[in-house]
């Protein structure tokens, strides 16, 4: 189905709304996980931190406030239904314009600068930003847009290790635990621990990032990876790092693994952490102009 001319403006409006809403409405699965962690917490300082988390979540929804000051690096995963016919270049442009409009119209802090000159265009965009991942969905007639404003406290804790086959799964387990402990208080724990396993170096890192955008605690469909998720989740939560790294019973809200096959000589593992708010918003757009918002 060829999309109408108005579709690109709809994408632009939707991306503006996704950015603003994502900063104010923490996903319900994340809120539930924070509530559960707060309820079972035994340390006094950690209880105080969880109370502040829940207060800010409530202010976001109830009083239309931005929950965290970090407006992040704008990242979009765009699933194009195979029955849609559209101009991909115009689609990417509409996403960029929506990002810029959110920044100007709300207004939002522009967190994007040139890596060398540190110039900030005050648009939340720049060379290569926003980051847009396109994929194609068989038998679908909709455009699915998943948005994440990725904060830097957690993003700066990203790491990749090109392990070798002889390091085995144990090498992966060790690396993940060392990265989470090494990150300590800095990524705003409790975190969602995204793990990429396999692929090339670049794919491995992309898998780790995509893993952080999954609904909280949704298991990997492969039972072997799902078991590894559970094992690492339990291990990480025994470290005692706790909320804000001030000590406590919950260090990770979830551990998610995404995997790809790799080269015979390779055993890559990547870790991408997401902070406790785990902001993400989703919109599904139909060619007839209908938009459904979700998470």
């Amino acid at each position: 189905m060829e999309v109408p001319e108005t579709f690109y403006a709809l994408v632009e409006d939707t991306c503006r709304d996704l950015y603003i809403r994502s900063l104010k409405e923490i996903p319900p699965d994340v809120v539930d996980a924070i509530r559960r962690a707060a309820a079972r917490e035994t340390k006094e300082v950690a209880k105080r931190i969880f109370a502040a988390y829940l207060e800010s979540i409530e202010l976001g929804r109830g009083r239309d406030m931005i929950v965290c000051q970090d407006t992040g690096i704008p990242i979009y995963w765009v699933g194009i239904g195979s029955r849609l016919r559209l101009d991909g270049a115009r689609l990417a442009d509409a996403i960029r314009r929506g990002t810029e409009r959110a920044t100007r119209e709300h207004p939002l802090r522009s967190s994007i600068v040139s890596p060398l000159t540190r110039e900030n265009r005050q648009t939340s965009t720049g060379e290569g930003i926003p980051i847009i991942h396109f994929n194609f969905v068989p038998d679908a007639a909709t455009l699915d847009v998943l948005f994440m404003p990725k904060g830097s406290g957690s993003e700066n804790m990203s790491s990749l290790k090109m392990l070798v086959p002889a390091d085995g799964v144990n090498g992966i387990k060790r690396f993940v635990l060392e990265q989470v402990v090494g990150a300590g208080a800095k990524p705003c724990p409790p975190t969602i621990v995204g793990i990429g396993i396999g692929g090339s170096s670049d794919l491995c890192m992309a898998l780790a990032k995509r893993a952080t955008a999954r609904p909280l605690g949704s298991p990997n469909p492969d039972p072997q990876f799902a078991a590894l998720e559970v094992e690492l989740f339990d291990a990480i939560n025994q470290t005692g790092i706790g909320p804000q790294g001030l000590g406590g019973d919950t260090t990770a809200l979830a551990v998610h693994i995404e995997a790809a096959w790799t080269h015979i000589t390779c055993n890559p593992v990547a870790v991408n952490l997401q902070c406790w708010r785990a902001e993400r918003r989703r919109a599904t757009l139909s060619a007839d102009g209908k938009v459904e918002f979700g998470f």
Partner: protein
Amino acid sequence: MASFQFNTPLTEADVRQLTIGDCVTLDGVVFGIRDASLMRMLDKGVPCPVDLRGAALLHTAPNVRKLPDGRYEPLCVGTTTSMRMDRFTEALLRDHGVRAILGKGGLSAKSAELMATYGAVYLSVTGGAAAGQTLQTEAIEQVFWEDLMPECLWQFRVKGMGPLTVGIDARGGNLQLDVQREAERKAAEILRKMGVA
């Protein structure tokens, strides 16, 4: 764990009585600084436009709205990971007389030593819970170095800013570092139990 309320500017006596884990609220002026403003001030040697003696500095780059009269309205004032700015601790305490650094994630063992020497503390702000902190920000009184937006030097008027947790006291205590060291010790044990020698 005791609770304290202080008005700014802070005195050495104010901060010397604190112990890691204590709860603090602040009233008065808090200056917002971070990577770009600190690099301008301490790497490029541009004179600081405000007197930082007794100051509480917050690692932040807020979301703001510029009003028609040129002032700024705070939309979201939170904090950022302090460790990036760790190397500036010495100059801030020794040359500028800063008494409190506010941020998230903690500072190094070296910064804790400096805080014991000069009489200063690190107050841990609840990272990511900026909506609550924004309500404690009454006004943006002055903004310097607007070309660094959003990493300007901000002067905030705060009321009941907190609860802040004492992360580093002036006696050498460093809560985040203690927790991390303990986690490293536990991690070695956990890995052994997992059969990952």
